[in-house]
């Protein structure tokens, strides 16, 4: 059974106050605007179905990220299975509406960020996304179901790989 209609408004208000990170999850895991719309619908659908089981004494964001990331990673897995993974990034890779007057540097930076996320494994992308959303290692561990020290280890590896993969040209010259 879906949660009762009386929960609609409560669910909507919680979702509205947390929709920005939700849209970012879709941005990080969907390659095209069509993918992102599909993914958002799927995530919201799962969240709504699972809302009856949500323990209101616990943080909504942790619960929401768990459902959203589980659905998003599964979405990517299903796309890979049917070879749709090779679909190119849309809108110049930025994946957000671009105005004609937009600062080219900012758009380029967003495109780079997008490509960087694409290079990560599903697990590392989830860790990076939560880190960028300013979650602590403990919170990241709670969402992913791994220990805090494990999150720390993986973050250190990510930092190293980031430095190696997108090295600043001036740093290269210095080296």
């Amino acid at each position: 059974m879906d949660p009762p209609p009386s929960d609609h408004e409560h669910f909507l208000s919680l979702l509205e106050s947390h929709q920005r990170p939700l849209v970012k999850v879709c941005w990080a895991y969907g390659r095209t605007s069509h993918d992102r719309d599909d993914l958002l619908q799927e995530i919201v659908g799962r969240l709504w179905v699972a809302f009856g089981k949500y323990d209101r004494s616990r943080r909504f964001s942790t619960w929401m990220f768990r459902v959203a990331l589980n659905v998003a990673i599964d979405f990517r897995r299903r796309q890979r299975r049917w070879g749709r993974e090779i679909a190119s990034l849309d809108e110049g890779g930025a994946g957000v509406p671009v105005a004609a007057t937009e600062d080219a540097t900012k758009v380029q930076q967003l495109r780079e960020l997008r490509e960087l996320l694409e290079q990560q494994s599903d697990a590392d992308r989830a860790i990076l996304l939560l880190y960028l959303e300013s979650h602590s290692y403990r919170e990241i561990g709670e969402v992913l179901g791994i220990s805090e020290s494990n999150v720390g280890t993986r973050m250190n590896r990510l930092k190293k790989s980031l430095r190696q993969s997108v090295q600043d040209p001036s740093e290269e010259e210095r080296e």
Partner: protein
Amino acid sequence: MQLDELQQQWQRLDQKLDQSLVLQTELVRRVIMQPVRRRINRLAIWPAMIDLVSCAGLLLLGAAFLSDHWRDWHHVAPASVVLIGAIALLVSSIRQLARGAELDWCGPVAEIQSSLERIRVAKIRQFKWIMLLAPLVGFCGLMVGLHWGVERLSDDRVNSLDKLDSWWIVANYAFGVLFVPLGYLVASVLAKRCHGHQWWEAVLDGIAGNSLKAAVLDVEHWASLQRESPSHSD
């Protein structure tokens, strides 16, 4: 690039997303007003339900046929192969449905993804064996169906096998048995050469076991994430 630099870019994304958030709110409202559970369940459950219903049908027909012809090994052999195939598919489909039903999408990501990968491994394994055993089980099914149909249409109990060339029957059984190793070998060779045809690549990788190896590695990847690893500083 440093992480704090990335974080700045990530925050910049907030400003950009503001332009599309109104639309997303409408989308969210539309989604929750629909009977979501039924829509999600229909997508997830129907393929397995179709497997279950076809297996149950095959089991009933096979068992009825076997009970009528259990004295004649010409009929017992193909009917047994069909029955064993149907039982194996039924067990595999029930296990997948049960695992899917147990999934709690609000659970920790590593644990849920591990379970999803295990379901994927079971699906790939099921697909591989369906493809490799299809000629053998299909021919056995044809023999059983043919005899059953001829028996129903004719007044006296005619043995349809008598009307068929015994060498043709033996050759088809032999082909069905040989197809298991040969199909595997041919798929392995073709999977390496077939590039650019996504659908064929997926099918050949499934039969050759490449998809299975990749899925097992993914299970291990999520399992290793759950395992404790020693922390070290930068």
